[in-house]
């Protein structure tokens, strides 16, 4: 009797495991980035960065701010972009999209030799150290005075404001603010702000 009971228990447990394994796991799928129909989240996701970047690029290209009087390309440096939200993300999720589009537009070059926190690509300077090394062909090492100083600077801030509407509902407002400054004069030649607002349950996390 005991043996029969334990066999039944074993089979029961096994069946339960199979059922639980089959039911509990949500199937992993790749996001269709071109046609994502998934509902919104209270926090920021890739669609929000994409929307904010697209709006900024659209506005910059329409404004004519990047038109060089001699038809040349401006040199653009990426300055400080502050994440002033309650979420942890790299601001490059926004800025990379913007700079890629501006570079592709043929209106600017983006410098990686100058940045708010030092050069973005340290190799700009490390490779110049090779001037001291006789093993390297002199002609292939960058000469002094070849780096281009930036004409323009891109800076910005992402702000979050949370408002509790009632016990069940909250509102999260995200402001994407960007500015392009002419370095010589310190004057802003373009400024833009994209607001993304979301409403949802107070149980949903927006940090």
């Amino acid at each position: 009797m005991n043996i029969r009971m334990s066999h039944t228990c074993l089979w029961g447990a096994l069946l339960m495991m199979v059922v639980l394994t089959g039911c509990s796991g949500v199937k992993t799928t790749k996001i269709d980035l071109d046609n994502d129909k998934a509902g919104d989240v209270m926090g920021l996701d890739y669609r929000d960065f994409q929307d904010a970047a697209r709006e900024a690029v659209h506005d910059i290209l329409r404004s004519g701010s990047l038109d060089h009087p001699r038809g040349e390309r401006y040199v653009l440096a990426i300055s400080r972009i502050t994440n002033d939200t309650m979420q942890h993300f790299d601001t490059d999720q926004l800025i990379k999209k913007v700079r890629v589009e501006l570079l592709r537009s043929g209106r600017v070059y983006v410098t990686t030799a100058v940045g708010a926190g030092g050069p973005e690509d340290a190799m700009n300077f490390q490779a110049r150290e090779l001037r001291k090394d006789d093993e390297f062909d002199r002609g292939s090492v960058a000469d002094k005075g070849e780096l281009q100083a930036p004409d323009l600077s891109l800076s910005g801030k992402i702000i979050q404001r949370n408002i509790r509407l009632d016990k069940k509902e909250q509102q999260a407002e995200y402001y994407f603010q960007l500015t392009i400054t002419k370095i010589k004069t310190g004057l802003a030649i373009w400024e833009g702000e994209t607001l993304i607002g979301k409403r949802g349950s107070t149980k949903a996390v927006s940090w």
Partner: protein
Amino acid sequence: MKKLFCILLLIVGVSLCGCADKRVFLNDNVDGDLDVSEVKMQRNHAGFLEVHIRGDNDAGKYFKSEYRIVWFDESGFPLDSLLSTWTPFPVFDDAEFYITAVAPHPRAVDFKIIIRKQEN
């Protein structure tokens, strides 16, 4: 009877001309709720092609739509760009709607646009 047939033919003709531009596609889910009445293209002072589209809301209520525009260079190749992702725009009750899109590169010479109702 003949007169009625002519009038019907005229109505059908006018409604078809409403979106005669072959570069503009209305998705099936629009289902007659909006129509495009004007498509203009110009090169702006910065050298980028711009498209202005004007249309009407025939649904009698506010709804959100989105468009996806693809830009082509002189050889007919599409230009890959963030500006070619789905872009939402409002269609207000009993009002015209407007879309203004700018090309990502001065090389763009033509475009195709698809408009659909936003579902989520």
